[in-house]
């Protein structure tokens, strides 16, 4: 990964913004990466003018990631529990149909 220290603050902000906006295209992993990658820049390093905005994007990315996690985990649990009760739809949604089990 490119070292952020070598980039100018404007570039850093630009990358962070792009990742943040990209995340809205149903790409929660971008938010996750954004949050981890820019964590130091947002909270740990010496303050610089763009830091406030980077911090804003990082915090929002974390929140977005968190919401996505909840959605995915809930769906997963629901699907596991209710797959057999969903009947045909459950089977069509299943990618690898389990052999020998309902």
């Amino acid at each position, binding site marked *: 990964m490119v070292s952020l220290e070598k980039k100018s603050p404007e570039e850093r902000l630009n990358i962070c913004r792009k990742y943040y906006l990209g995340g809205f295209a149903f790409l929660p992993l971008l938010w996750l990466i954004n949050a981890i990658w820019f964590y130091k820049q947002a909270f740990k390093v010496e303050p610089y003018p763009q830091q406030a905005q980077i911090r804003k994007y990082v915090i929002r990315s974390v929140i977005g990631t968190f919401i996505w996690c909840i959605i995915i985990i809930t769906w997963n649990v629901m699907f596991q529990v209710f797959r057999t009760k969903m009947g*045909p739809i459950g*089977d*069509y949604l*299943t*990618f690898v*149909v389990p*052999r*020998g*089990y*309902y």
Partner: protein
Amino acid sequence: MNKICLLALRRSYATTSTSTFRAADTIIKKTEHGNPKPDPNKLVFGANFSDHMLTIKHTNASGWEKPVIEPLKPFSIHPAAKVLHYAIEIFEGLKAYRGNDGKIRLFRPDLNMKRMLTSAERSVLPTFDGNELLECIKKLIQVDADWVPRSTSSTLYIRPTLIGTEPTLGVGASNESLLFVVTGPVGPYFPTGFKPVSLLADTFHCRAFPGGVGAYKAGSNYGPTIYVNQLAHSKGCQQVLWLYGNKQHITEVGTMNVFIYLKNKKGSNELVTPPLNGLILPGVTRQSILDLGRTWKELTVSEREITMDELLEAHRENRLLEMFGAGTACIVCPVERIIYEGKEYNLATMNKGAPLTIRFHDELVNIQFGRKPIYLFLQIFVVFCSQPKRVVDRMYISFDRARYCVRRLNGTHEIGCQSSIRGNSGRMYMIDNDQEFHIYLTDKKLIDSFNSFIIVLNVNLFNTYYIDYLMKHLDKKLNGLLLYLKSNLSRPLDFSHDDQCPNNRNSFYLNQTEKINWNSKGTSLFFRSFPFPIMLIDEEDDYKRLIEFYRQFNNSQSSPACGLELKSFQNAAHTTKTCMKRNDISHSLIDLQEIFCDPIGGLNIYSKLPQSIKIKPDQRSLKSVILILVTTDSFQMFLKPKGSTGGVQQPATALITFLTLAHLIGQEQDEFKKQNKEIIFVTLDGDALDYSASFKFMFDMINGYFPIGNKNEQPIKIEHIHSIIEFQSLSMTNELWLHTHPSSLINQTFIDILLRNNPMINLIRPNSPLPPASSQIFLRQTLSLSFPVYILSSTNQNQLLNHYYHSFFDDPSTLSINISTLEYNTTTEISLWIKRIVEPFAQTLIESLVGIKKNVIIKQEIINNLVYCILKNINCPLIHNVTNQSIGNTFKPFDQTSMPFSINTYPISTTPTFPFIKYVLGYFLRDRSYDIQNLTKISCKERAYNDSFCSYTFVDGYAPSIINEKSFSGYCVRSYLRFVQSISPAFIIENYDLSQTTYPAWTESRWTTISLRLFIIPTRTHEIVTLIIGILLTFISFCVLFFLRYYTKISLFQPSSS
């Protein structure tokens, strides 16, 4: 492999062309149900094929597609494909050999690949990288590795073929092609030692000519030789010696290269073979013999032209030593006699036993099977020291012949057994009798000492009482059940897992106000769903092996115990509805559509005398069709791929009776011509489970699909049915019972004549409940308003007289047949009994339909033959007599197997039952006026082409007794035969909800592996000691590594600087 091919010259067989397929791209689709492997000692060349094939498509537009290894199946090819018209086809033939070390080897496949490429170029077919095809073939053999015979003489024949498939009729290069490889096990060419051949040296016909394609392995080289070969056969020779030109140059022998070993005029021994001058196929065996011969000092090898004159001169001067052919199939094949220009020459080849020929043979076989003598000592030494056996094989003892229980499903339930995907295992505990059973269940300490048990139970205890008790008491600790039969003498008196009232699930029973237990000893265990696997061992050896281990390891608590692992994982679950739905699901990303279950059903086959066909618009009069029914299936809880399936009293006896009656009707066909009723013989397959086949039959009849096949034939509807006669559950009883229904429609005179003709038959009072029979459905679907039904059965008013109803114990011994001494024409009690039933029955039919009394007699021999074919060996002379050679050959793989009576899932499972019934029934009901018409094979075919109502088979078996055997040369059989798949209408009607109960919806799950293995569970101390030793070893190895690293100062994590 290269090491084995020591003689292989390093030649490049890869093309420089950039267009090729890659073996690494191969898509492998494995079959679910492998076919049974044929006995390696009874292989016929080219008749058996492995489960898989390799196909690679090519189009000029997009090049080679990915290679696909898939289950063997027919191609669909456009009728205009060039290969079908201009024989744009080339092929290769090579073999895979399994050596004594278990390794599979190919013999110089590089030469085959090279030749295939040159052949392809000559036929303007696409070329490829030979290395890649070779890798693909290796993959194919790996998939079918089990098909390479474990034998010192049998091998796997590999046939790569390349055809032009472009569907245009112009003679030109094909821009679409298909490369495919099929394999199949083949036996040794000479199973009983060398058999020299005689040759016809033909001076007129020629195989190849200069500028032709003799040097390429093209299919078009072989077709035209068959005619000449037949000429040779007619002169008592096996093969043709191909000559060319005015000087009669010797070129090839049959499909082999030729070698002549002679003392030349200079007095030295010379091995001569014709050179590769364009007339000779560059054979791999030819090349190998040349290479091998050149390493031997005692002879000179020359590739030169040799003429008949030179050969005969050497023969006259006693200089000819040996002559032999060489090819992949036989390796070498000695020649002892030549017919040339009308004269016979007996060659000297075999005078001293053909030492050179045998030497070549032995050396080549040793190389092919990897038995090069110089390595032999080393190999024995290595094998002796290392005993190369996988740890798994040493841990487990397998019982391959165990019977197993599988899963079946209907619209709402699943039945049968299920194991986990890796098999269920647990501590083995053996219970032989009631006393031991209760001792075990009260032994709390023992039960608590293990988490899971596999209970090994005497088969006599397999009933609801003991099973319920075990399941309740052990609960989750019961991990599986193994049943054993001590010996055939100790089989239980009653054994039936069907319901007490069979097929009662949808209240099919007519007139049955209260539940009648027709099968009063039935346990209904077949219809239970068990969460654990159940298996059964019925071979005495297996039982002895099992008890030996058990006794050895079950002495005390401190010694290791025996464990068992049962694996019978079933793919389907829940209900038919679920699994049929899952069959249809296919995600586009995965090509492979997975199949979970198959609908139960086989074929409904029907036939009648061909004279009685009604063609539209000829109206069929009402009540003019008599149906005679019999079923061809049964079920049993415990299956076995080979071995008895039971089903002898139900339905085999009835089937034999039915076929015998068909023979009698055919025999007396002149009588039946005098009246206007049609008698249709119907076999139903699928009735064992809820009468699916009968439902299908009625469904077809109601919808106007009966009889199927020709739209111009007047359909038979319910109102055309005169009556139904059914043979059901015939046991060899002194009395038989005739069940009739409904009383308002029955024909009393028919009954009276029948009872008078056969005093064995008792009449059950009309309006009594009907026993389990297919007619139940025929009546129910017509509300008992249309026709009467007569059921002849060994079932009295309330009881089936078969103690083993629907179980594998229902075998020939229950009819007091000793199966080991049963021969093709043994008169048994049962065949006498059937004669006593069928003759009066046929008389009754003639008397009541034609109105004359006639004494009909059937030859005892015919019944004996049927009994032998159906109960012992379906590949019997009868089936070869009523068909021709090519059909007869399809029965060869089923040699020494009785007709299987179990649940069929046609066409997924292959059973010989249907072809057998089709050919025998069709033949018995043939138009006998054709027997004496002396039709030739060609005119028989013409008739088949012109007449779409009847089938014509040219039979070249044995003569029927009518014809003088001396003038017999095959005859044409004209018969009426129709068959239709018998799966329940539930699977045919579109958008039918399978959970409904209008029609039965039985399916059978698919499964992949079944195994039963025994292993030893070590004691706790043993386990702890092993663990400690393991930890110590790990620790020591770390220490050693640490010290080494310390002293050598080499860091593993940095590349060395040197």
